[in-house]
């Protein structure tokens, strides 16, 4: 293990700061046929709900300038399937496991957290960008009081390290970050996708069946970086930064903005070796510049 690269997030020691972003990497099985999963700091798995979710109608994918839109609709086979099939697979690998969890009601979030409480996972990541069906479909992550409530509720059911994944679709990200921390978050991850749209002018209709979808990829990086920077200045918990990271230079920008670790999502689609190359690139940068640990540059931008 390379000490320079070691990163501790909410008490979990990662061998390096590079994590996969939820929903872009499945449970690692498919990318594991190309890359060595053991070299990753952690794998964050696709959102898991208490019951299976079917997901959204097709088309679910659209390419855009500098990124892409998705409306997968959090399709997943449910927490029981995850525990039975995916967790044992991931556990064979020498990497940390972060389970992204989702729900449409407070009770659904709590049920997943409770089911996972005794399982061998390293961290939960609470996706609060889901629509709250009890509140007319407004996303949990948009109102500070709702954020605090859902984090508190989940906190009650789990002793595992708890990261809360913030939506950028808010007026003031720092206010939401504070609400999550006061609800009991041990770490924050940001950003989730921005809502976007693409229209096929020849067919004169939206490309995505659900009309709009989550925008990700290089185009969102400046926004993500600004939000990570602001949040790191506001709260004391570690931040997992993500949004458009495709190279080690991108990752270092997030770390210099204050991120404890980074997650790589859409870049995996463009280059399945993106995570591996980013890890090598960060290591090379530290060596070349004779930097003894990531702490020396973390949050260095004032």
């Amino acid at each position, binding site marked *: 293990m390379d000490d320079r690269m070691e990163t501790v997030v909410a008490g979990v020691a990662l061998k390096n700061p590079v994590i996969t972003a939820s929903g*872009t990497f*499945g449970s690692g099985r498919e990318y594991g046929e190309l890359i060595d999963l053991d070299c990753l700091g952690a794998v964050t798995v*696709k959102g898991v709900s208490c019951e299976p979710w079917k997901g959204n109608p097709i088309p*679910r994918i659209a*390419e855009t300038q500098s990124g892409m839109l998705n409306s*997968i609709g959090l399709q997943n086979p449910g927490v029981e399937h995850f525990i039975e099939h995916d967790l044992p697979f991931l556990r064979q690998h020498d990497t940390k496991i972060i389970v992204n969890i989702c729900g449409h009601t407070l009770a659904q979030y709590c049920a997943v957290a409770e089911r996972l409480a005794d399982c061998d996972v390293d961290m939960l990541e609470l996706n609060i960008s889901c629509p709250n069906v009890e509140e007319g479909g407004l996303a949990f992550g948009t109102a500070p009081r709702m954020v605090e409530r859902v984090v508190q509720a989940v906190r009650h059911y789990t002793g595992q390290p708890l990261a809360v994944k913030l939506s950028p679709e808010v007026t003031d990200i720092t206010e939401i970050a504070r609400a999550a921390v006061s609800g009991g978050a041990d770490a924050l991850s940001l950003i989730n996708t921005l809502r976007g749209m693409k229209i096929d002018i020849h067919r004169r209709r939206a490309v995505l069946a659900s009309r709009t979808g989550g925008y990700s990829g290089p185009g969102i990086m400046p926004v993500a970086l600004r939000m990570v920077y602001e949040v790191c200045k506001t709260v004391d918990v570690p931040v997992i930064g993500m949004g458009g990271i495709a190279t080690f230079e991108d990752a270092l920008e997030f770390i210099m903005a204050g991120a404890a670790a980074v997650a790589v999502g859409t870049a*995996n*689609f*463009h280059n399945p070796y993106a995570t591996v190359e980013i890890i090598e690139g960060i290591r090379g940068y530290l060596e070349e510049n004779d930097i003894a640990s990531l702490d020396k540059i973390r949050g260095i931008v004032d």
Partner: protein
Amino acid sequence: MNTYYKAAIRNQKELMPGIWKMELEAPEIAHSARPGQFIQMYPPDERNLLARPISLAAIHGESVEVVYRVVGKGTEQFPRLRDNDTVQLMGPLGDGFTLPEAGERSVIIGGGLGIPPLLELSKRIPGEAEVFLGYADAPFMDGDFRGHGRKVHVASQTGNGGFRGTVLELVETIAPFADRVYACGPRQMLQAVAEWAGRQGIPVQVSMEERMACGIGACLGCAVKIQKPGEKDWQYLRVCRDGPVFSGREVVWNG
């Protein structure tokens, strides 16, 4: 086994206006690929983040052939590539066609750019197979199927090259006997073929298309509604991993 690497281009040529054939020096892919599998081709312009899924039209010893139509921002970049230029590829991907049992008779039905993905299948079917190809106008690649001794029937919307009408109308006119049906083409055609085969009780394999991001089964972008026999509800499966070939009877066509 799936691989990700840059392959050199050989013999790129335009078969028809807007339809190109390209040979790729890709031994790793050629050695393990099966008919019906596809590759992800990355457009050279890095601003196009997502790869384009293209089927393998032919698998040789050390190379593979693809035939593609120039559609939009990604595929329009490929004709500019010259011999010895390289292109980033991933593959082979997906599950291919299941070949017939010994003694079974096959019918192969292709429409438009659904025709090239059937060529290698047609070559590898050991027994009898009759081929039906449907075009908008002038036929292409029909000679490649005749080249390995298949009986080929051609239909086109304009009557160019033989029968005027849809490929299924031609199939219904000739009413071939079949133990197995293989089809690739536009969704509407596949649905019509699946219904026709269903009425006769013939098993039918269809190769489906859907928009992809990862191409390997991780993102769930390329969903298709499938209802397995004995299951009370449909589910979304992945075209890139669980397909692209599915049983025509299991595809939920409407909705």
